[in-house]
């Protein structure tokens, strides 16, 4: 239902950035937020084929994501499918698509991550604006309501 596009500039060459993104030895070092650890993985994104990663949060919660690397165009881009597994049943959730592109810049290289949910293709993009404004309303709403005081 949502498309995410994230860009980040790095002061290294496109080749260096592409290697850090796709090679397993480096990927395990940065996948997941600070404090998270990769505990088991198939994170080699240099060739097409299945991939997965198990990540543990600082609180000890385990997360699992898996998919298939669908294209590798070194040192420009990779594409892979993505789905979280249910933490209790291990059931694989709805699949989405991720594309990582590396573009050479004047000062180094830029990484563009596009995370696209499959749902979008099925329903069209008509809801996109609605979602954006709703999320803005949500943010405002949540700021006005201190959730820590709510009983759940």
């Amino acid at each position: 239902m949502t498309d995410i596009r994230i860009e980040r500039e790095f002061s290294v060459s496109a080749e260096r950035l592409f290697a850090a993104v796709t090679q397993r030895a480096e990927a395990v070092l940065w996948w997941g937020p600070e404090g998270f650890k990769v505990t088991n993985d198939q994170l080699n994104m240099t060739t097409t084929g299945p991939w997965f990663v198990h990540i543990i949060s600082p609180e000890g919660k385990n997360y699992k994501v898996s998919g298939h690397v669908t294209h590798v165009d070194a040192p420009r881009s990779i594409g892979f499918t993505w789905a979280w597994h249910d933490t209790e049943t291990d059931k694989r959730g709805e699949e989405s698509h991720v594309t990582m592109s590396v573009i050479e810049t004047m000062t180094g290289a830029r990484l563009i991550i596009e995370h696209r949910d499959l749902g979008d293709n099925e329903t069209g993009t008509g809801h996109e604006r609605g979602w954006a404004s709703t999320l803005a309303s949500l943010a405002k709403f949540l700021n006005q309501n201190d959730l820590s005081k709510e009983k759940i």
Partner: protein
Amino acid sequence: MMILTNAFAALSDDTRFAVVERLMKEGELPAGKLLEGVELSAPAMSRHLKVLRKAGLINQRVAGTQRLYSVRPEAMKAIVDWTMDHRMFWEASLDRLEAHLALEKEPEE
């Protein structure tokens, strides 16, 4: 997970989506107020409100002869957490990638 899929199913209807948006903007409202400006019969609105209530998106409160409706903050938070998940995941991962790549640029001791 169960709650979220119910919530999205309930919100996939334009009328119900609009009701939730309005309740977020204007706060608690009586059913009569929700009918203003929309071409909908009272029983139809009542059915929509019931769907939203069953999905856990809104609360109903009885005050005298009025039924008042409001958004459930916990439900909204669950939706935000879900939609933000991936953006936060990638942003946080890129912070680490940035730190990792910056490390090798430091001079050797």
